[in-house]
């Protein structure tokens, strides 16, 4: 293996980067459970796809686990009350997004009783048909907990339709600073393995490959022990390297197969789920509990007590940090607030932003960690080319984007970019490459929308023109018809008059 690594290194086949992982000491602290805060802020869009639609009224009393917003559309997920209490408003709150824009949310005031709604679990999920498991997972609002928050049921049902053979479980947690998946695998390995077995049953996959980065030996040991009895579940240590937890990369490392560009993992018989999702799925199916809480890593140089905290969805980051021990020096020296990991997470404008289902971390960085610098010109060193896990040419793409030559950037593979941030991480000139790519993707989407809108307008204009022409034609025809009728009537009258005259003669 060592030799192969050197060989691969020589062939420059070592994609990705090796950031300092900063996972300890947070990863080694026992999980702390945060009490329910007084108010919970529940955005209707906590997942990929259509936003949920509220099904509660202001002033309505709800119990813990009660449906408060239902899924809307094919790809969506419902939202449940994380505790019992009263709905006080359906309004706009700051989104977990760098723009600081708002998005609609339900605000729930806790009554302090934390009283469950009646739950309908299932003692033997393996007796249920796959479709029924998918239905229960969908109803529980389970989404991918690795960060992307894709509705899990959609993936499960799609996988069983596509006849997948392999379930890849993502325990990579390649983002530095984060350790919530690590903690779950150490503490609740048996539950995760049970969840994986339910996933296998629901998808029809034959084996599950659990990829865990080798910087988490405790998690590997715990998971191996828990999975020992099930030969269809295989725990695999993968090299710690960012972005190992990216879907396409993890699949390639574990199965040796590449997901075709523009394709989905299901095309090669694979479906990927996060280990944390397996646990949420297990309690959804076995106990009937919807997804209302999650483990969040609080970390960064400014966090005085880094660690993992079990938080109800909808809790403000501000309160999570306060519970975790606050910021060092009351936030003096705080340089950046991030939700998610340092490589792909979102910068947030202030701490009054709620934890959503996909929030894996709340990071408080100081100036050492995010030394902001103005970008220098590109020196074409090629570091980004070596780092790119997709085999793209970030420096070429960014120079095209700078000249607004978006179509050339697409030819260079802009659409294959996974925005992992490796290129910007290694860039000696500190060029914000990901920002370029995100901007270009946004511009292209806007152009597409404008084109669609333009096409629609054109169509409407054409239709109007046609309608006007038709109406004019019809008018002319009607006038002609009326004239003809009038003339015919006149002729008839004349003839009648003539006849009368004749008769009278």
């Amino acid at each position, binding site marked *: 293996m060592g030799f192969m690594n050197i060989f691969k290194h*020589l062939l*420059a086949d070592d994609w990705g980067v090796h*950031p300092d992982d900063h996972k300890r000491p947070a990863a080694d602290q026992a999980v702390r459970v945060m009490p329910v805060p007084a108010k919970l802020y529940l955005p209707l869009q906590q997942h990929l796809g259509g936003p949920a639609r509220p099904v509660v009224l202001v002033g309505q009393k709800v119990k813990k686990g009660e449906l408060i917003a239902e899924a809307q559309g094919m790809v969506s997920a419902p939202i449940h009350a994380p505790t019992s209490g009263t709905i006080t408003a359906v309004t706009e709150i700051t989104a977990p997004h*760098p723009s600081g824009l708002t998005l609609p949310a339900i605000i729930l005031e806790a009554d302090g009783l934390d009283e469950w709604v009646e739950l309908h679990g299932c003692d033997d999920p393996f007796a249920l048909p796959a479709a029924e498991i998918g239905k229960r997972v969908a109803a529980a609002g389970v989404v991918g907990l690795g960060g992307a928050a894709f509705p899990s049921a959609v993936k499960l049902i799609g996988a069983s339709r596509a*006849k997948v053979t392999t379930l890849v479980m993502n325990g990579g947690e390649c983002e530095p600073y984060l350790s919530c998946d690590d903690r779950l695998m150490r503490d609740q390995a048996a539950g995760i393995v049970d969840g994986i077995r339910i996933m296998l049953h629901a998808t029809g996959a034959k084996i599950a490959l659990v990829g865990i980065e080798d910087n988490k030996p405790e998690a590997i040991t715990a998971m191996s022990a828990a999975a020992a009895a099930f030969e269809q579940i295989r725990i695999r240590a993968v090299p710690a390297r960012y972005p190992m937890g990216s879907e*396409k*990369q993890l699949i390639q490392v574990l199965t040796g*197969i*590449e*997901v*075709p*560009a*523009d*394709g989905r993992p*299901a095309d*090669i*018989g694979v479906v990927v789920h996060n280990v944390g999702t397996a646990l949420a799925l297990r309690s959804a199916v076995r106990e009937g509990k919807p997804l209302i809480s999650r483990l969040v890593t609080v970390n960064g140089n400014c966090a005085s007590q880094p660690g993992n905290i079990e938080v109800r969805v909808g809790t403000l980051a501000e309160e999570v940090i306060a519970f975790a021990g606050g910021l060092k020096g009351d936030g003096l020296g*705080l340089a*950046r607030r991030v939700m998610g990991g*340092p*490589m*792909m997470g*979102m*910068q947030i*404008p*202030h701490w009054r932003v709620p934890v959503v289902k996909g929030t894996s971390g709340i*990071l408080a*960085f100081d100036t050492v*960690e995010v*030394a*902001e610098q103005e970008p*220098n*010109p*590109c*020196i*074409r*060193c090629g570091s980004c*080319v*070596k780092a*790119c896990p*997709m*085999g*793209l*040419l970030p*420096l*070429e793409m960014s120079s095209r984007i700078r000249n607004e030559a978006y179509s050339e950037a697409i030819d260079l*593979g802009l659409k*294959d970019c996974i925005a992992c*941030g490796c290129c*910007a*991480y*290694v*860039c*000696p*000139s*500190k060029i*914000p490459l*990901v*920002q370029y790519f*995100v901007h270009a993707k946004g511009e292209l989407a806007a152009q597409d929308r404008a084109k669609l809108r333009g096409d629609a307008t054109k169509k409407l204009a054409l239709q109007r023109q046609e309608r006007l022409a038709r109406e004019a034609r019809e008018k002319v025809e009607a006038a002609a018809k009326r004239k003809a009728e009038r003339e015919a009537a006149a002729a008839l009258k004349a003839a009648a008059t003539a006849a009368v005259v004749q008769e009278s003669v």
Partner: protein
Amino acid sequence: MTPATLTAQPVASPHAHGGNSVSRTMLRVQVALVPATLYGFWLFGWPSFFLWLLTILSCLAFEALSLKMMGVTQIKRTLFDGSALLTGWLLAMTLPPWAPWWVAILGGFIAIVIGKQVFGGVGQNVFNPAMVARVALLVSFPLPLTQWVYPLPLTSLAAPDFIDGLRIFLTSLPQPDAMASASILGYTKTELSRGIDLLHSLAGDQAPVLSWIGARSGSFGESASLLILGGGIYLLATGVITWHTPFAVLAGIALPAAIGHAVDPGHYLSASAHLLSGAAMLGAFFIATDYVTSPNTGSGQIIFGLGIGFLTWVIRTYGGYPEGMAFAVLLMNALTPVIDRFVKPRVLGRDRKGKALDVPEGNA
């Protein structure tokens, strides 16, 4: 709301950085050049020190002037990112150690203004600035650019002292014959043209010797092959450069040289003579690896390096000049955009041509 919350600008991920910077990279290259440079001072004395110093100062001055004329606001930041300094340093390494003062000034002008700033500054130039200056000087002023001196270590009696060194540097008088010497490449070329084959010319008393430690005449900084190699290994170890380019350049020289030498030792120098003389080592590790003017991909760099090596050997063997590294580098610099266009990494999930991989049978 604190004031900080109002000023926070939207910044895209990643929020972490690996810590590499342009100045750190440049600094590492300079560190790698230090041993060979110091040794060069010792070998060739004070004149070489003045040459080195003035070349660098000239480069910095022309860089500052260009930036000012272009209206760059943060002149200091760009000026001291280390790139102009490095260009001057590398140019000085390739000059004859006792070259006069105006060579340094003119060289700095050509390298920075014509070689770099007219293209738009750092990162935009097509050709390696140091090599542009080297070649322009060589073609324009062949005499002072091909006058080599015997190494006269500073400790030896014949070595010029500080004042003498200054005089040699500033007066640009022809050097006394006793001190003049030829490099092995020049010597053998001349002898071959006189009809004396290598077997005889190299056996003669006058023949320059090969030396790993630089006890041979040649440009100021390139003679101590061992120290250059050491600097190159430091660059490899610190990840500033990868093995592709240097390996390919050396292989590109050594392979044709070995074949030629095996076929006709009377006309073709051996591979070791080629590798240890002229700018082979310096070119392979420090010149050809210039980021801006070399391809971005490993495979592209191998093609690029092999091209430089082979062209160097061709020019040395068949060309009019005894040394061809600078010409070879410039020629391959011109081909770099073409190489970059055709040699691209394979995108994950696509074939080499950029077409999406097929969905395997039975999974459609």
